[in-house]
C-alpha cells in the first residue's frame, strides 16, 4: 500500500506573529522577528538578540483557552496553540473519522528547566536533597523537570480525541523535521489516515542559553545590531535563538478527497542521515546533509532537475552555511546554480528543535504560491557560499514545482523533506 500524502492544515506561533498568515507575510516581506533580548536573572548576558514570541499578545489570544491553566512548558503552549490552528484550518471533519487512525508526531528539544527549583533544596545548612524531596509540591509546575518532553504530543492528541500513534522525536534541530517525515511515512504506508505533525521549542531561558553560549553557538556580535543573523553572508557569526511552535496536518489522499479538504501541497519524500563526524561541528563537506537530501529525492522519486527551491537550514554559523552549500552542490551538480535557496532563520531566528516545522510550512506555501522568501541581511557574499540565496528583502515570484526543506541537528543528525505542488 502506498498512499499519497497531502498537507491540509497549517498552524504557527512564531516571533513573526501568532498565526500562519503573519508568518508567511513576514517571511515574504522580509520582516525580522529578531530583537534586543535579555534573559531574566542576569544583567549583562553576552547574547543580546533573539526572536521571541510576543508573550503579551500570546497571552491575550489564548488565556481564555480551557487548557491555559494546565501546567505545561512554555513551548507546549505554543505547540498546542499551533495545533489548534492547524486542525481548525484542516476542517473539523478531519476528526469525524476513526480516531484510532489519527495520530500525532512532535519534535522538541531539551526540557525547559527552572533553576530556581533547586533553590528549594537550600536551608541554613546548605542544599539538601531530602529538603527538596519534601518540597516537591512546590516545584515549578510548568518546568521540564516535572513535565515529560512527550507532554505536548499527548496534549494535542487528548485535545482532539486522537487515539492513533503518538510519537515524540528528539533529534535536536532536526526534531520537527523527523516528526513530519515519520508522520508522512506512517500515512504513506497506510498505518494511519492523518497525522498532526510539527514541533515546538523555547530555548530562551537562562540555563539553555548558557549551555548554547558555552558551545559557541549563538552570535554575540555587536556590529550589526538586530541584523546579526546573516546566513551565507561573509560576516555571519552564529545563530540567533528563537522560540515558537508550528504544526501541519498531513492526510492521505483518500481521506482528503473523501471530505473535500483543501490541499496546500503534497509531501512526497523524506530522507535522514548522520554525519558520523564530530559531536560539535558539521561535516566540513556536508556529507550527512548531502545524504539526507539524496535520500529525500530518491524517496520522492524526484531528480535534481525537478527541484526549484531549497528552504535551507542556513543557520548563519561559520561552519554550517559553507558545508550546506557544498552539500547542495554535491547533490545538485550543474542544477545547483539555478535553485532558489533561502534561509528563513534570517527572519525567524533558530527555533532549534522546532525549526523544521515553520520552515516546512514556508516550503509548502512557496510551492503553493510560487513565491520564495528572501534571505535577509545577505549583503556581503562569501566565496564559500556561492549559490543563489535570494538576497534582498522581498520574496521572489517564480514557479516552484517541487522543493526541499533541510534541517540539520546538532551532532550531525540530518533530515530533509521533499514537497511538491499539488496537481
Amino acid at each position: 500500500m502506498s498512499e499519497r500524502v497531502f498537507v491540509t492544515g497549517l498552524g504557527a506561533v512564531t516571533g513573526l506573529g501568532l498565526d500562519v498568515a503573519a508568518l508567511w507575510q513576514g517571511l515574504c516581506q522580509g520582516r525580522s522577528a529578531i530583537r534586543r533580548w535579555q534573559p531574566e536573572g542576569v544583567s549583562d548576558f553576552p547574547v543580546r538578540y533573539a526572536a521571541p514570541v510576543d508573550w503579551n499578545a500570546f497571552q491575550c489570544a489564548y488565556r481564555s483557552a480551557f487548557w491555559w491553566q494546565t501546567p505545561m512548558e512554555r513551548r507546549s503552549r505554543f505547540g498546542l496553540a499551533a495545533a489548534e490552528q492547524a486542525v481548525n484550518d484542516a476542517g473539523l471533519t478531519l476528526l469525524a473519522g476513526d480516531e484510532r487512525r489519527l495520530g500525532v508526531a512532535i519534535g522538541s528539544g531539551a526540557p525547559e528547566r527552572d533553576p530556581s527549583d533547586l533553590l528549594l533544596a537550600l536551608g541554613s545548612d546548605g542544599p539538601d536533597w531530602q529538603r527538596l524531596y519534601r518540597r516537591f509540591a512546590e516545584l515549578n509546575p510548568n518546568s521540564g523537570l516535572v513535565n515529560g518532553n512527550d507532554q505536548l504530543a499527548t496534549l494535542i492528541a487528548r485535545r482532539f480525541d486522537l487515539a492513533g500513534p503518538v510519537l515524540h522525536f528528539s533529534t535536536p534541530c532536526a526534531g520537527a523535521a523527523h516528526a513530519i517525515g515519520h508522520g508522512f511515512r506512517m500515512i504513506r504506508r497506510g498505518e494511519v489516515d492523518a497525522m498532526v505533525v510539527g514541533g515546538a521549542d523555547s530555548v530562551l531561558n537562562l540555563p539553555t542559553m548558557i549551555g548554547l553560549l558555552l558551545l559557541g553557538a549563538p552570535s554575540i556580535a555587536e556590529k550589526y545590531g538586530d541584523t546579526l543573523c546573516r546566513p551565507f553572508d561573509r560576516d555571519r557569526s552564529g545563530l540567533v535563538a528563537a522560540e515558537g511552535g508550528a504544526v501541519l496536518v498531513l492526510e492521505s489522499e483518500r481521506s482528503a478527497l473523501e471530505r473535500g479538504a483543501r490541499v496546500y501541497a503534497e509531501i512526497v519524500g523524506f530522507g535522514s542521515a548522520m554525519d558520523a563526524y564530530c559531536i560539535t561541528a558539521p561535516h566540513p563537506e556536508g556529507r550527512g546533509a548531502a545524504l539526507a537530501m539524496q535520500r529525500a529525492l530518491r524517496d520522492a522519486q524526484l531528480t535534481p532537475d525537478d527541484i526549484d527551491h531549497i528552504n535551507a537550514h542556513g543557520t548563519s554559523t561559520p561552519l554550517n552555511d559553507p558545508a550546506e552549500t557544498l552539500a547542495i552542490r554535491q547533490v545538485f551538480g550543474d542544477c545547483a546554480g539555478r535553485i532558489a535557496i533561502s534561509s528563513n532563520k534570517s527572519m525567524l531566528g533558530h527555533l532549534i528543535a522546532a525549526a523544521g516545522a515553520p520552515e516546512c510550512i514556508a516550503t509548502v506555501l512557496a510551492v503553493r504560491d510560487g513565491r520564495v522568501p528572501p534571505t535577509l541581511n545577505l549583503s556581503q557574499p562569501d566565496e564559500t557560499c556561492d549559490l543563489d540565496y535570494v538576497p534582498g528583502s522581498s520574496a521572489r515570484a517564480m514557479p516552484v514545482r517541487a522543493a526541499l526543506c533541510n534541517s540539520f541537528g546538532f551532532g550531525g543528525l540530518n533530515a530533509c523533506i521533499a514537497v511538491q505542488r499539488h496537481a
Partner: protein
Amino acid sequence: MTECLWLNGIRLAAPSVFCAQGEDWQRVRGALDTPVAPAPAPWPTCDFPAMNQAWAAPDPALASLGVDRELARTMEKQARMMLTAACASLAQLDPDDPAESDEVGLYLGLPTVDEAVPTWAALQGWHADGGRAPWGEWLMRETPPFSGLSMLNSSAAAHIAATAGISGPLAVYSPQADAGLNALIDGVLAVAEGECAHALIGAVSPKLDPLLPLQYGPAIAPSLAVPPGEVATALLASRTASSPIRLAGYARALVASAGRGTEAVAELIAQALSMAGRAATDIGWVLHNQPWQEGQATALRQALARLNDVSPLPTLNVERHFGRCGPASGLLAAGLAHEALSRGELWHEGEHGLVRQVLHGNAALLIALAPLGQCVVVVLGREVL
C-alpha cells in the same frame, strides 16, 4: 488474519545488553534464575519507598571503543551505556557481509537527561559564598562548559554515529517506555522499506540521579512503584542476518480513556497478532513493563486475560526484575524474547518468584505502556529458516 508480508525477511540479530544484572545475556539469564536484589539508591532517603533502592549498572569503560577520556567526560552515563550496547551489537555484524557505512541506520529510544541545574556543587558553592552573587550570574559562572552537549539526550546518537562511523538514516524517540519499541518498529521498517541494509536499534534507561525520585515518585501509583534500574540494550535488524527471529507485527496508539483502556489494549494486541498472521495460541511468552497507574494495570491484566481465558500465558514484568528503565524496558523485553525464542526457555512470574520453563509457541508478545497513555504492542516471531 492477513500476515504483513513486507516485514518478512527482516531478521533481528545480535542483541546486546548492559545492566546491573550483567553485561551479556548469559549473566542476565543467570540473574533471572537467581535474582539480584536492588541496592540502596545513590541518593538520600525519600518518602517514596520504592525509590530508596535501585539497580545501578557499572560505568562502562569506553577506551576500547576508541573514545578518549576527554570526550567521554562530555557524555552522561546513559550516553556511555547506550554507546557501549550499540557498539556491542554492531560488532556482531556478519564479517562476510561488510556493510557500507551509509547502509547502517540508527534508531534509538532515549530518556531525557536528568541533572541538577545548576549542578549540586554550584549550589553548594553559592551557599558557601553566602548567596552574595546574583543567582543568575552564579549559574553562568558555574555551568560546566559542555552542559549544552551532555544535557542533550540525542548526543548519544551523534556519539554512536561518530564512533562507529555509520551515516545511514536515523530517528530518536523519547522519553518513555514506548520509545524503545517505536525505535524497534521504525528501525525494522527502515530496512523493509529499503532505507538501509541494516538498522542498529537501541534504547537506554535514565541514569540514576537524585532527581529521579522527584520525577517518578509522584507520578506512579504507590502500589505500582518499583525501584529504578540502569539498562542499555541494542540489536540489529537486517535482511542478511542468519537469525530466525523477526518482528512479525505491531500496533501503537494512545490509550487516553481509562474507561475503555481494556478494549484499547486488547484491540492493539489483536491488531499486532493479525499483522503477524498469528493466533493467541502461537504466543509463548508475554513481556511488559510496569504500568504507571491503576487503570493501566487493570487494562493490561484484563486484556491479557482475554487473550487466553483458559490458562494464563507465561508472563514477565520486565521492570519488576530490572527496575523502572524507561525506553530500555521495551527493547530489553525484545532482547529477552529473542533469547527465549532462540533457546526455547522463558521465565514466568510464579507465586514464589520467577520460574524457568520451556517455551511453547513460536512468538512473543511485547507491551510497553507510557505514563501519558502511549501504548505499543509488538509480536516477535520465530520461523524456520
